[in-house]
């Protein structure tokens, strides 16, 4: 049976179930509008460790433990872990899962990693290769600033178009049975690069990729945007979100203001928290989905969402060599009740 429909979309035969979700968020995220939705809020983003990187790995480890516990499983019930982060060679995730001694696929999709992980995890389940799989993504503001921009100690100024990397980790347990919202479709994104070079304006680099994935998803599934209660992009921020709506309008797709949002916008109070264009990073879509949207899907408050983590696939080397920023976005259709 062929599960692929259209150009880039997978339609699952037995839609995998997201049986639990866990989130740990940093101090600043815990002061924002979503504070009551996270499982754990850090009081200190070093988390008692000696470096930001060590702290991030500890956050990864703890989030996985919480997600597995909430699912009523033990770590040995997990067949595969799909995870990734922003640090060089994926060390945030690798060092975070090393004590679990479970099979691990390390992913890099920049800030789209949560979408990539959930998509692949769901494929592993529906393909019959696993019963319980973990998908997660993490990032750390201080470690990212150090790696991609400047060490914080330098006290560098941030432009208005820049976004604030989320500190935290969001992890889901996806299973072949159980109760919870189900992943019905995955539209894997392709790389879209319109030549944006400004690393302080990643929203603009990613918006065309988000638009491409949304258009492709709707075409492949023959759905109208109104089919979804909410279309949620990952970390476009205010700048990218505005651009996305313009790009969709050019494609003839008009979505009501209240039916499209962005995790980078939801997670911070722009004026009170001085976060400029909004939140970003792997953890932005991951913690917002796991903490805020997952419970709403579970209770049925949201019937379905199209969740689209977005990524800017540049490295410090590529930016230094004058390369533009390739964008990517993966769409995951999640429904609280599948007929």
């Amino acid at each position: 049976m062929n599960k692929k429909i259209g150009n880039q979309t997978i339609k699952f035969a037995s839609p995998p179930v997201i049986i639990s979700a866990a989130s740990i968020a940093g101090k600043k995220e815990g002061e924002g509008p979503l504070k009551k939705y996270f499982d754990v809020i850090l009081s200190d983003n070093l988390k008692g460790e000696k470096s930001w990187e060590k702290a991030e790995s500890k956050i990864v480890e703890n989030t996985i433990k919480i997600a597995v516990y909430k699912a009523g499983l033990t770590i040995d019930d997990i067949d595969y872990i799909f995870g990734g982060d922003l640090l060089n060679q994926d060390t945030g995730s690798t060092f975070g899962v090393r004590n679990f001694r479970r099979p691990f696929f390390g992913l890099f999709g920049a800030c789209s990693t949560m979408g990539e992980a959930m998509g692949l995890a769901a494929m592993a389940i529906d393909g019959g290769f696993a019963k319980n799989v973990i998908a997660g993504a993490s990032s750390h503001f201080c470690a990212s600033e150090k790696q991609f921009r400047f060490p914080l100690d330098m006290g560098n100024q941030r432009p208005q178009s820049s976004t604030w990397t989320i500190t935290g980790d969001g992890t889901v347990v996806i299973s072949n049975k159980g109760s919870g919202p189900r992943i019905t479709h995955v539209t894997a994104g392709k790389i879209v690069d319109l030549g944006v070079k400004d690393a302080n304006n990643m929203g603009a680099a990613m918006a065309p990729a988000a638009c491409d994935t949304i258009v492709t998803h709707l075409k492949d599934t023959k759905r109208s945007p109104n089919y979804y209660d909410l279309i949620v992009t990952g970390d476009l921020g205010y700048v990218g979100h505005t651009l996305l709506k313009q790009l969709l309008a050019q494609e003839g797709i008009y979505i009501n203001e209240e039916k499209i949002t962005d995790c980078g916008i939801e997670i911070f109070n722009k004026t009170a928290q001085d976060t400029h264009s909004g939140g970003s990073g792997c953890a932005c879509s991951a913690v917002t989905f796991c903490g805020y949207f997952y419970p709403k899907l579970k209770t049925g408050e949201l019937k379905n969402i199209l969740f689209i983590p977005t990524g800017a696939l540049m490295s410090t080397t590529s930016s230094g060599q004058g390369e533009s920023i390739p964008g990517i976005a993966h769409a995951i259709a999640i429904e609280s009740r599948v007929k």
Partner: protein
Amino acid sequence: MSEILKAFWVGGFICLIGQLLIDKTKLTSGRILVLYVCIGAVLGSVGIYKIIADYAGAGATVPIIGFGHNLSKSVLKEVADKGFTGIFTGSLKAAAGGISATILFGFIAALVFNPKEK
């Protein structure tokens, strides 16, 4: 008092241009930094920056643009004293105190303090 005011408005003006470059252009702050050092070196070598520094004092010498001015000033002095080799030996001489102090104090601070968020 008037010297403080002069230092404040000139130093503030230099920073204002930097802030405008961050907000209005796509230049990264690293590039602005290098640009400022180069501008300081050029203005210093043709003698313009000396006039500004004489007027504003620390307001002109403390921002990074003053570092560029310092480099060119000491190269010119070394060239006058030692000739051709001064081009190579001069630039870091005037800055030596600042650079060594930065390394030493940075090291001490790293021993004493943990990194913090913004």
